[in-house]
């Protein structure tokens, strides 16, 4: 589904990713761990097409090289990024944002736009699964939301848009144990044979709930180690310094 070949990126001539290779197949869950500053968030940004990075190498999504594909087109084709710091957009109603987003994606897929009534039904059902109070949906997007609420809102968007690959950028950071479980349940219940997940995290605790098929350790812009789910537990004990 997603293949990254010798991906190098730099910002203002400073190298951040220095030859990342990664292959994610449909139905798989991959986790990326690594120390601060190793390039984890940069990888997430570059995969979603954020401007401001010089890149070389290949990003291949569904058999097509997407290095030059704009952000919105990648999103419409099924790349979803759950933000580490979801943005506040004052004056924009959350429901309205979700509906606009869903319709943009549906339109790109050649599907009919969803009407308000059916949208509200859908969003009600999905938010209930995540224990999101409906009142949140009529508030301004992420404005005054707590850290946990913002992250749950990201997962809600993921569930609505049904992307092919979901990249979760430190979605677990700043979450209490209940919120963490809800986020993990959200991911687990979205898993199918057709989609995939790339979970970026510092901590093993999220991986207690979401069992990854592979764990990669990113250090100095390179994947230095790849293992099965027990690698996380090992890292938790010994840290990154011994790698």
């Amino acid at each position, binding site marked *: 589904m997603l293949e990254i070949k010798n991906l190098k990126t730099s910002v203002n001539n400073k190298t951040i990713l220095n030859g990342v290779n990664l292959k994610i197949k449909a139905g798989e869950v991959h986790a990326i761990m690594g120390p601060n500053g190793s390039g984890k968030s940069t990888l997430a940004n570059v995969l979603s097409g954020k401007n401001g990075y010089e890149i070389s190498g290949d990003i291949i999504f569904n058999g097509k090289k997407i290095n030059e594909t*704009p952000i919105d087109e990648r999103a419409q084709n099924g790349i979803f*990024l759950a933000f580490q710091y979801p943005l506040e957009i004052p004056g924009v109603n959350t429901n309205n944002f979700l509906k*606009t987003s869903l319709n*943009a994606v549906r339109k790109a897929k050649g599907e009919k736009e969803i009407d308000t009534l059916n949208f509200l039904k859908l969003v009600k059902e999905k938010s209930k699964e995540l224990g999101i109070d409906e009142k949140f949906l009529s508030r301004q997007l992420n404005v005054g939301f707590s850290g946990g609420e913002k992250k749950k809102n990201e997962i809600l968007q993921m569930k609505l848009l049904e992307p092919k690959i979901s990249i979760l950028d430190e979605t677990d950071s700043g979450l209490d144990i209940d919120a963490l479980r809800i986020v993990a349940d959200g991911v687990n219940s979205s898993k199918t044979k057709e989609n995939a997940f790339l979970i970026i995290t510092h901590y093993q605790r999220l991986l207690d709930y979401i069992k990854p098929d592979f764990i990669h350790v990113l250090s100095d812009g390179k994947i230095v180690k790849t293992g099965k789910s027990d690698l996380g537990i090992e890292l938790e004990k010994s840290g990154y310094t011994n790698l």
Partner: protein
Amino acid sequence: MKTQKDIDTNQEYKYGFTTDIESIRAPKGLNEDTIKFISNIKKEPKWMTDWRLKAFSRLKKLTEPNWQKPKYPKINYQDLYYYSAPKSASEKPKSLDEIDPKILETYKKLGIPLQEQKRLSGVAVDAVFDSVSVATTFKGELDKKGIIFCPISEAIIKHPELVKKYLGSVIPLTDHYFATLNSAVFTDGSFVYIPPNVKCPMELSTYFRINASETGQFERTLIIADKGSYVSYLEGCTAPMRDENQLHAANVELIALDDAEIKYSTVQNWYPGDKEGVGGIYNFVTKRGICKGKNSKISWTQVETGSAITWKYPSCILQGDNSVGEFYSIAITNNHQKADTGTKMIHLGKNTKSKIISKGISAGSADNTYRGLVDINQKAINSRNYTQCDSLLMGNKCGAHTVPYIKNKNASSTIEHEATTTKINEEQLFYCNQRGLNQEEAVSLIVNGFCKEVLQQLPMEFAVEAQKLVSISLEGSVG
């Protein structure tokens, strides 16, 4: 009560001159003869002619103000026509095929019905079209309540006592150059009178007044809300008006008596000039309301997206005790557009309150200034003002300025002023893009969010179109 026949007669009157267009155009130039010509063609009584002439004699002693930020080339007032009858059907475009496709595209985006598109773009339409019957039904309902809603030229003849009493009572003949010019040469506009304790059952709009189109550069509007009455008035239309006039110097006067409320909403989308800043309307309008009675309220809402230069300050004089003035504004400037706009809140009565919410958006090489005066007089004890001015910049060639003038002459009053200037946030755009929205959808969403407090003041049917208009005006502003 006005009948269909009256309307027909009126129509004939209006188009009666059309066989020889030259004969109904006033000669070029600003002089007493021109003014007498206008007054005469409108069959005005002598007092009205005298009033105009008085304004003209005053005008000769005035000079154009020049303190505004956007400068413009000198206007030769002797080289303008001050009266020209509406175009005849033969002169008008025959069909929409003759209209600028860009304008048609905008209509399409706004979802304006075909018949309405024709009216707006000045296409000759058959004598019998929908709005005539709409206007008649509408008129009947208003007549029942004693509400007067007619062209001001008609009010001068049919309701002279009201016009004499209130015309020029808020914007005096001697006010300033453009206002005085308007008093001398105004051609037409709207007149509204709401009798005591009547709530006007519908939004009054020039939309329903078929005579309102092509009133020309010098429009004059007078709205009187008698004791305990309420009216909401919508000016203009969200669709771009086909308008060839360069200078617009309209006057709007509002009078609210005891316990009355006037809500006045404008969506202005006149020709802004092209991308290089050539052409476009100078929108130099004087709008002022007086809360004359106690507990009265005047609320201005404006969405300004058009014109090459917008220079106006819809104001409230809060004379009655406990009266309330509000100003909600969105001013969008793109390409080479310029705006110097804001409000004046003059507190005279006790316990008077005013609220100012201004949202300025600049894109391209545009320049946007908020200029506002809050003046709380000595006797206006326990008065309050709250002002919030937010500016949003898009790109790095545009400008935003905030110039508040604050005068407080008593110690019991409170004034709050908040101002912010922000650039459209790259991270917010990234977030929206990542959710599948393209650049224009993302900008539109963020800007509409920024303007929300003002947009929600607009009447429902207007708000939807205004939102679309906000997006359209900013199209192509983010690379």
